[in-house]
């Protein structure tokens, strides 16, 4: 089944903070591991609550982010969303890791 992944962005990098991101990318990864669709959503203001709302609304399966407060991490986990946090790296490289299925929480993609 195709999986939807949300990545908060800061320029061309994974945003250091989930709660301060104003731009997110939503990527669809197909069964064979290819990124089939990408869209960028610009948020009116940075807000962890609104981002959580967007994640549920868009039926996101996995969130790839940098720092995230435990409260939001637990909330998303409770909502069956996989959170790969403390990920550092450029958006492009992170997508490649996602496609190969090797991205883990805490990964620093240099």
């Amino acid at each position, binding site marked *: 089944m195709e999986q939807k992944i949300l990545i908060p962005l*800061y320029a061309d*990098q994974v*945003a*250091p*903070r989930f709660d*301060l991101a104003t731009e997110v990318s939503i990527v669809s990864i197909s069964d064979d591991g290819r990124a089939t669709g990408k869209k960028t959503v610009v948020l009116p203001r*940075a807000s962890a*609550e609104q981002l959580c*709302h967007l994640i549920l609304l868009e039926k996101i399966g996995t969130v790839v982010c*940098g*720092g*995230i*407060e*435990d409260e939001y*991490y*637990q*909330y998303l986990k*409770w909502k069956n969303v996989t959170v790969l*946090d*403390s990920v*550092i790296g450029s958006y492009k490289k992170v997508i490649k890791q996602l496609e190969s299925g090797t991205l883990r929480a*805490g990964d*620093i993609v*240099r």
Partner: protein
Amino acid sequence: MNTLPRTPINGLFDTPVELPSLIDEVPLAIVVLDTRRRIVMINRAFEALSGFSMEEAKGIHCSHIMRSKLCIQKCPLENMDSNSEPVSVESDMINKDRQLIPVLINLSPIRDAEDNLAGFLETVEDLRPLKEVNSRETHAYVFRHLIGKSPEMTRIFQTLPLLAQSDSAILITGETGTGKDLLAEAVHQASNRAKGPFIKVNCGALPETLLESELFGHRKGAFTGAVENKPGRFRLAHNGTLYLTEIGDLPLTLQVKLLMFLDDKVVYPLGSAKGFQADVRIIAATHRNLDLMVKEGEFREDLMFRLNVVRLHLPPLRERGDDIRLILDHFMSIFAKRFRKKINGLSKKALKILLDYPFPGNVRELRNTIEYAVNMCPKGQIQSTHLPAYLAETKHFYGRVSPEAGVRSEWTSSIVTSDSEQSGQKTWASLERDMIIKALVKTKGRRNKAADMLGWGRSTLWRKIKQYNIDA
């Protein structure tokens, strides 16, 4: 992985000295950056505060490691040159343990011999102890972030200030979601070690080999991949508190090493014969029944005795009487403020559903439920329809099994007895699994009837059968 280059300082002493040996022992978190704001070096105090090791942080842009609001909104270093004066800004940061920490950040330029900009020096002061003092509430039913007025909680609050001042090991027990982490941190913040680091290690989160190196550190070359000396969590917690959560998951071999440390207070990193005398207070926590584990030979009795100097048991929410109402109101006011909503309490029906629900996930589950309800409620009173559906499903199930009004259902009472019998050994998932199996046995495997009995739709039951891997 690159080997970290040496950083000798010449001219200070007769022989060159390594920079880490100078800054590692400074209790203030220090970050050294190059002109492009990439990390050149961090000291041990910053490793402890941020959760990132020197090896991980080296060469990374500081915003990804500091993770401060300042980095995203307006980094003062953007316009800092060699002539700039140092800047001091209050901000926050999120560490690897997902804690939002208030910090005071001092930034200053580093100049070379010709007064050119060579890089930046950043010091980070943890303001948590200061903030805690300012916001400390005087209510008898509040201790740091813990709330409660039930006799069990009041007793804990009364003993905590005294316990915090001692250096004894503390064992915190309690079901998942009862606030073990908060209690451990509260003890640290109220102790004389509050200015020192509070290091949390989840003993169940890492495989044995990694956990050993994470806890005790390793010497360069101790094993394949050990390209640098790693201080280990015990060393990072020097002069502070080491919080070992899920201690029941600590492998037996590491239990021996922990026991040795508790006896000698010396840490031996992997591959090193030279020990380090660590002044660390140990707080351990588990949701498991350690007494039972000792009986079954899964946990060392001698370690249990050493950790069990002081035992604090956090009661499950269902045994805390009126606390549920207190906590409910507390979270409702917090989330209403956060989501900028005007919420005027709960309707009678919604309150009844919440008070009847056993909350196997305890305070955490209650908090999540209230957050959900506040999110769903546009304004005014929170109605039963604003609560997560599964709460009502549970209620439905009560009705099916025990039609007598006012009588607690078989399921609820079975939760209470099984939990009290096994002191929190069962999780919500295992209870739900048992419940499904019981229903399937009763209905001789007929899923339609079982679903009906459980008060669920057929697809819900099918999904849960798959989720719990029940061979039906």
